């Protein structure tokens, strides 16, 4: 790695970084003259066409706002109706107004959708909050549907998202911290955590990492993710995104931290473990036995998704002896006249499936379905009939694709499908030995990986038997009385004695 470091580590970067955070807020005192103020502002805003300058009082005052950001009705209600009602003499006296004498500050508020009132002969600039908002309703997120439980989802407005969380978690320890990130985009990033449960070290770490980002633009949490995660070269996601308030709240209560951004309905949960990606709110809404069963199936799908094509290739290409006697001739019959070696066959099929998925995902729904049918049924059938690919390989790859979608998290599902490829190559070169090597690499990487200083593969490595209660299985909730230790919660006890009534009732019956 020293090689790369030498290339990329030039003195330049460090200098820029040092000058970044210490830049002072620009100051520009306002002028007494109205025209000077207006000139300054319009010039600073590059005479943008949607900047409206409304001259009032025969040219003695002006109201500036972006007509694209301001809500006309609010403007009417907050300023003009108030004046008309006669209760206030001047716009300057209006109670909603926020005064400033700094033109740069006024500039900033203008950009967030405020209206600025400027008067001749006064240095006071009055700002009115008239931002118009277009909000989506809090619908269920399509990629995280559940059968039972809340059907609310986060929206693009971060205030509404905070509201959704606060409504579910009415405690004074719930803390939100705002950050402005992105030099040009000025994106509002919100950090949420439970003070007194979340580990202060992790919060400090996250805060530092967010502050050190000096990118011009931050669009979404996904964008933020790459700047602050521990190992950007790892295939595994080290933050979990969710659009569900209930999931977010459950994670907050585990002592984890939430990262949200204005303009995106996705909240990032951190630190995370590998097994968290296999938990779904459904597990906790259904009975624990069925929850356990479904979770076991999901974890099994991990093995199928990354290992099944490799396993099949290894058998067909190296160790056909392991096939049971009764299966050997049907298998032989189906692959006997396939032109390509199994590894090529598998790669073709896996890539076809990825093509179908990728083309279907962005098309409008009716066309997407057609593509699914054409791709899945027609190609699948024709490819076997043409003798390009054996029908067993079609089964194997289809099963793999299905298994990769079982994961409740979309990021991990992509990861799984990418991990299939190295394993296919390993199996194609070394057979079962290759699969063992590949799995070994993956396991070593998982054990080594950290998410904000916490072990990623917990509670398996490092092993903590107590936390296994909610990992491969989902035991009854009243047994999950301690928070999982991987997020290093300050307060570990989560549930007190809750089923004492059983003893009391038994005693009463005896009497």
């Amino acid at each position, binding site marked *: 790695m020293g090689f790369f470091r030498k290339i990329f580590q030039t003195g330049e970067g460090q200098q820029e970084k040092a000058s970044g955070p210490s830049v002072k807020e620009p100051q520009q005192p306002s002028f007494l003259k109205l025209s000077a103020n207006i000139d300054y502002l319009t010039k600073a805003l590059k005479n943008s066409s949607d900047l409206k300058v409304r001259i009032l009082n025969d040219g003695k005052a002006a109201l500036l706002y972006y007509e694209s950001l301001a809500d006309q009705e609010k403007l009417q209600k907050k300023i003009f109706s108030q004046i008309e009602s006669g209760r206030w003499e001047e716009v300057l006296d209006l109670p909603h107004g926020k005064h400033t004498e700094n033109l740069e500050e006024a500039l900033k508020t203008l950009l967030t959708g405020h209206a600025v009132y400027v008067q001749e002969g006064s240095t006071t600039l009055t700002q009115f909050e008239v931002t118009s908002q277009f909000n989506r309703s809090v619908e269920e997120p399509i990629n995280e549907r559940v059968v039972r439980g809340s059907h609310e989802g986060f929206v693009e407005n971060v205030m509404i998202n905070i509201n959704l969380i606060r409504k579910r978690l009415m405690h004074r320890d719930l803390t939100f911290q705002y950050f402005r990130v992105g030099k040009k985009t000025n994106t509002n990033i919100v950090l949420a955590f439970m003070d007194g449960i979340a580990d202060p070290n992790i919060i400090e770490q996250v805060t530092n990492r967010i502050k050190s980002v000096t990118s011009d633009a931050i669009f979404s949490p996904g964008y933020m993710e790459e700047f602050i995660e521990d190992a950007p070269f790892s295939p595994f996601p080290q933050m979990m995104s969710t659009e569900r308030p209930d999931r977010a709240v459950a994670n907050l209560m585990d002592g984890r931290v939430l990262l949200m951004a204005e303009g995106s309905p996705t909240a990032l949960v951190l630190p995370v473990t590998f097994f968290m990606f296999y938990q779904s709110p459904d597990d906790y809404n259904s009975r624990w036995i069925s929850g356990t069963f479904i979770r076991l199936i999901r974890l099994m799908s991990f093995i199928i998704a990354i290992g099944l094509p490799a396993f099949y290739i290894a058998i067909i290409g190296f160790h056909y002896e392991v096939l049971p006697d009764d299966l050997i001739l049907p298998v*032989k019959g189906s692959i006997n006249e396939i032109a390509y070696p199994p590894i090529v066959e598998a790669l073709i099929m896996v890539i076809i499936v990825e093509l179908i998925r990728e083309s279907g995902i962005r098309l409008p729904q009716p066309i997407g379905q057609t593509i699914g049918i054409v791709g899945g049924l027609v190609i699948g059938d024709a490819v076997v009939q043409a003798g390009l690919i054996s029908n067993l390989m079609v089964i194997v790859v289809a099963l793999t694709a299905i298994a990769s979608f079982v994961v409740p998290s979309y990021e991990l599902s992509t990861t799984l499908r990418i991990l299939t490829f190295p394993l296919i190559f390993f199996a194609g070169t070394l057979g079962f030995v290759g699969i063992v090597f590949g799995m070994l690499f993956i396991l070593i990487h998982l054990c080594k990986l950290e998410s904000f200083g916490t072990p990623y593969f917990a509670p398996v490595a490092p092993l903590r038997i107590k936390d296994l209660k909610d990992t491969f299985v989902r035991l009854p909730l009243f047994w999950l009385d301690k928070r999982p230790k991987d997020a290093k919660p300050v307060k570990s006890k989560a549930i007190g004695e809750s089923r004492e009534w059983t003893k009391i009732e038994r005693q009463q019956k005896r009497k």
Partner: protein
Amino acid sequence: MLKKGWLVIICIILLTGCWDQRNFKNVKLVLTAGFDLMEDGQINTTVSLPTILRSSDGAGQERIQVVSAIGRTPRDTRDKIDRKISNSFAASKLEVLLVGEELAKQDLYPPLDVFYRDPRSNLNAKIAVVKGEASEAIRLKIEQESRISKYLGGLLQAMENTTHSPGENLQLICAEMFEPGQDFVLPLLRVNEEASLIEYDGLALFNERSYTGKDLDQEEAVLMMLLNGQKGKTARMTFKVREDGKQRIMNYATIHVYRSNSRINVTTSGSNVTADIKLHMRVDVIEYPKNHLETVKEVKKIKKELKKQLTQKSEEIFAKLKDTNSDVFGIGRRVAAYYPDVWKQLDKKNYLENVTFNPDIEIVIQQHGIIN
């Protein structure tokens, strides 16, 4: 360093490629093989090679090719067969191995050596002796059965289930071949050319590593297996229990062994070895054409008769074993384990002759069907 590392990884993957690959589609599977001894001492190997022709839906059509070759050793014949077939010869999924009578009468280990030496051979393959030539059995065309391997494998499996054979495979007989105090039996098959079938014909008795030429017939086989504590899933025997039936059929009774337990106890006095074989069976009478089995007296009478006949039959089995010195019960091994001094004195070739067998057979008739 890193550049070199990548280069090495890329070279390893691309240059070696699929070096060790043994593609399943490029092999010709041998599912049944048979060895015969030629008059000049050469080995004749016959194999059946199934080929499935691909069809777009469902299982394809199956074709069987039978190839044989004569050579000095089994490996030599394998190579000769390999030169006659498309793709390469693969015996690693062998299901049934047949050995011709004449070859079995010689030492059995040399022809099997090739299987034990090759790590890929299927030691789970069933093995049987064929009366006459093994190649005849493999060449037999049976219309109803698609594959000879399936037919033979099924037949041998069924014989194992009905307590007719111990279900020996290549792995299991290997130890017994080298063990002086324990011998084995293999199922004996006979080709019925007229009916175009293969029949189970009892058990071939082996002494050390070679076939003695003597067999246990089908009924003796069942009893021998029970005495040895090797009951399969079912065990049935038919006996003549009376003489006074109006029709011949009325003289017989069939029993189904529900549960059996045998204990072999070996004692010595001097160099005399005595083997007490205690067999306890719980049986159901599943066929009794004469009917009227409702009285205790009648049941007792049958029981007594059965005991007499079973004891008599087991004596016959013991006589046969002594005659061939085929120590199927592993008496020698027990002597070696419990009385090593005695074992040292015994003649390892013919010790069975002097062993006294004391069968003690006890049966309990616990059911006689759902009618009386």
